């Protein structure tokens, strides 16, 4: 592989990390809560704007602003689950889809009203130049984002598999009646799970703020990509989401380099369809769940 | 004369063996019973016979043809119908429409399909409720609907998967009579059942399945006294001090 190919690979991995985190939120919501969430991109944008507002108006370093964004995103996620998603948990997919789409319209346009539709750019001092090793360059914001992604994924894993709350979340996902009969407050637990998903999504958005110029509908462009990653990794599979995020990042970057950016979309959707056909449980999924 | 022969069928899911070299024969005009605990593989075997699953290995022979790779629709056209363990009514269709879906299997026209439907509703005793939505039926009626639908396809062989489940004593008594009646019209029956007295009363021949394998077979009396069956399935009865 040429040096440029290597650089593309590297860029793909770094960007893939952010995709992975964004998809992780969706994977939780899609896989654990069984909600087809089309407000995912909009939730990501909310994260972007929270970090932007804190960074721009209060002069906070965007990475220090992340915790605030996390708290806010958790609340937003929690509330979205309690109302309105709670009411359509057992409704058919298209109802969920339309509802979350409605939520997306609301979130995006609330942002539009508050922040105006103008493009907003947040520059971080000291991050203007890429770091380099030999002839390879690393965008600092992406590198830090990558680190944060690994940490967050680890935290979420710990939360889901090592804590009581996590066990309750998984239990509620697998058998609602069983969970209720063990005294688990399923309603709250689901809202918490949605909140956690929203936090991941929001962080992913926040990490993109120093990388992209943002506007209220920016999140839409990540929506389908996140679905691709979620399905590729297996719904609700954390490490699957991480690895698939990297795969998609790399595929996008390499196909962008070798075929051109216009076709990289096509390659990604092609992979998506193949995965749906051949391994709907994802690359790492076990069992055959497509029938249910 | 066997209408249906199952020879050495295996079925596994991602390495989990659900049916392990199971064989059975269904003789024409008889009622053949299949018993075993939940998870023994009865329903999976049923699914392999009725074309819903394709057996991993082994053969299913129906009317002297190998049918293990045929779909459920094809088998239905060939005269094999089945019911499901959990009744699966088409809730938003009326009872009559539900049965007519089955009726279309052999019918040449809409009228004939509905004729078939009315006939079988009459047979199972649901004709009074034909205009109701299927989802409004109670458990017992849903069972009957399930049976009527299968009958409307004009089957030669009927596969019944726990038709007694969820029935009140009165209903199950009626159901026993109904099955007997259906059998007397010349339809061959293979049935899965839990309730021992029912299967003992109805079946001409019984197979016992455990962990995917056939562990015993014979006429009812033989099976009930088979020590292997007692040991692993029937038990010696509950002894309380």
């Amino acid at each position, binding site marked *: 592989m040429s040096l440029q190919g290597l650089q593309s690979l590297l860029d793909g991995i770094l960007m893939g990390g952010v995709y992975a985190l964004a998809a992780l939120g969706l994977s939780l919501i899609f896989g654990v809560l069984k909600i087809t969430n089309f407000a995912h991109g909009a939730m990501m944008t909310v994260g972007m704007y929270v970090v932007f507002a804190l960074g721009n108006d209060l002069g906070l370093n965007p990475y220090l602003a992340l915790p605030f964004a996390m708290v806010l995103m958790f609340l937003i996620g929690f509330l979205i689950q309690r109302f309105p998603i709670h009411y359509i948990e057992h409704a058919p997919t298209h109802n969920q889809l339309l509802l979350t789409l409605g939520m997306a319209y609301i979130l995006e346009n609330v942002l539009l009203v508050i922040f105006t539709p103008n493009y907003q750019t947040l520059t971080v001092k000291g991050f203007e130049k890429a770091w380099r090793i030999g002839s390879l360059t690393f965008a600092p914001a992406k590198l830090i984002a990558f680190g944060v992604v690994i940490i967050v994924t680890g935290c979420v894993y710990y939360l889901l598999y090592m804590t009581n709350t996590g066990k309750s979340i998984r*239990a509620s996902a*697998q058998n609602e009646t069983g*969970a*209720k009969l*063990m005294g688990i407050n399923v309603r709250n637990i689901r809202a918490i799970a949605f909140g956690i998903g929203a936090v991941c999504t929001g962080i992913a958005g926040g990490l993109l703020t120093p990388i992209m110029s943002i506007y209220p509908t920016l999140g839409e462009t990540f929506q389908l990509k996140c679905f691709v990653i979620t399905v590729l990794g297996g719904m609700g599979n954390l490490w699957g989401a991480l690895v698939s995020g990297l795969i998609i990042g790399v595929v996008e970057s390499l196909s962008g380099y070798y075929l051109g950016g216009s076709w990289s979309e096509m390659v990604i959707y092609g992979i998506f369809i193949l995965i749906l056909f051949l391994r709907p449980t994802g690359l790492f999924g076990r069992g055959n769940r497509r029938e249910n | 004369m066997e209408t249906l022969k199952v020879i050495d069928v295996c079925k596994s899911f991602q390495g989990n063996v659900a049916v392990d070299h199971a064989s059975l024969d269904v003789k024409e005009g008889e009622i053949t019973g299949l018993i*075993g605990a939940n*998870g023994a593989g009865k329903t999976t075997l049923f699914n392999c016979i009725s074309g819903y699953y394709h057996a991993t290995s082994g053969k299913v022979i129906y009317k002297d043809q190998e049918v293990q790779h045929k779909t459920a629709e094809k088998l239905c056209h060939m005269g094999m119908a089945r019911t499901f363990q959990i009744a699966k009514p088409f809730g938003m269709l009326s009872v009559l429409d539900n049965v007519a879906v089955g009726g279309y299997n052999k019918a040449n026209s809409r009228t004939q399909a509905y004729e078939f439907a009315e006939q079988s509703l009459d047979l199972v005793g649901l004709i009074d409720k034909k205009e109701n939505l299927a989802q409004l039926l109670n458990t017992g009626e849903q069972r009957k609907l399930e049976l009527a639908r299968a009958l409307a396809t004009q089957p030669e062989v009927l596969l019944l998967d726990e038709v007694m489940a969820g029935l009140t004593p009165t209903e199950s008594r009626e159901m026993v009579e109904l099955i007997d009646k259906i059998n007397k019209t010349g339809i061959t029956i293979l049935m899965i059942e839990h309730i021992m007295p029912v299967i003992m009363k109805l079946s001409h021949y019984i197979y016992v399945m455990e962990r995917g394998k056939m562990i015993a077979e014979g006429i009812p009396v033989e099976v009930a006294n088979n020590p292997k069956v007692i040991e*692993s399935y029937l038990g010696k009865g509950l002894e309380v001090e």
Partner: protein
Amino acid sequence: MLTITDLHVGIGNLKIIQGISLEVRRGEIVSLMGANGVGKTTFMRALSGLGHITGGTVEFEGQDITHATSQEIVEAGLIQVPEGRQLFSLMSVKENLEIGAHTKRAKARMKENLEYVYTLFPELKEMNSQAAGNLSGGQQQMVAVGRGLMADPKLLILDQPSIGLSPIMTQKVLKAVIDIHIRGVSVLIAEQNIHDVLKIAHRAYVLEQGLIRASGTAQEMAENAEIKAMYLGH
């Protein structure tokens, strides 16, 4: 211990339970009998806060729990082992048991209860790390009962534990119920398998079309000609 007065329960617009009064005294095994579809499960679920109670009262240890949430009911010590087991099928046996001890009270006694579950069902210890969904029906029922015990019940409700089990497995589960009872837990058990359950119960109620049709001691019931004819007949 559990006093139910004139309970009405519905699903949607349908009235399923139409005025049931029933009592479980401390230290009793009470059986609720009736064929499938008469409303046993609806009734049982309502006791655990999973139904739409339209009338009547449920009192547990002097506390009115008619409209309590399922969490509150579990806290109070009324635990249900539901019909169809409702296990967390992708989680391991151990995790299933651990989740049973969700309340504070149960967590405090988790170690003790876990030990008891393992003495009651030694097989479970060997299958600790297996996913619950991969077990056989009988084994799953053991996990379900075990999970219920982990919640440290004062009163254990078992909804049709024998469903789908072979007769021999049913006998095993019922034996476990006796053991649990000896340990001081009261039991309310719904069963179709009347023949066996009357052997272990002190008293029994017969449910038919949403109403109590008959009640009495187990012996009375076993000797009742009508019931014999209806349920023990086949």
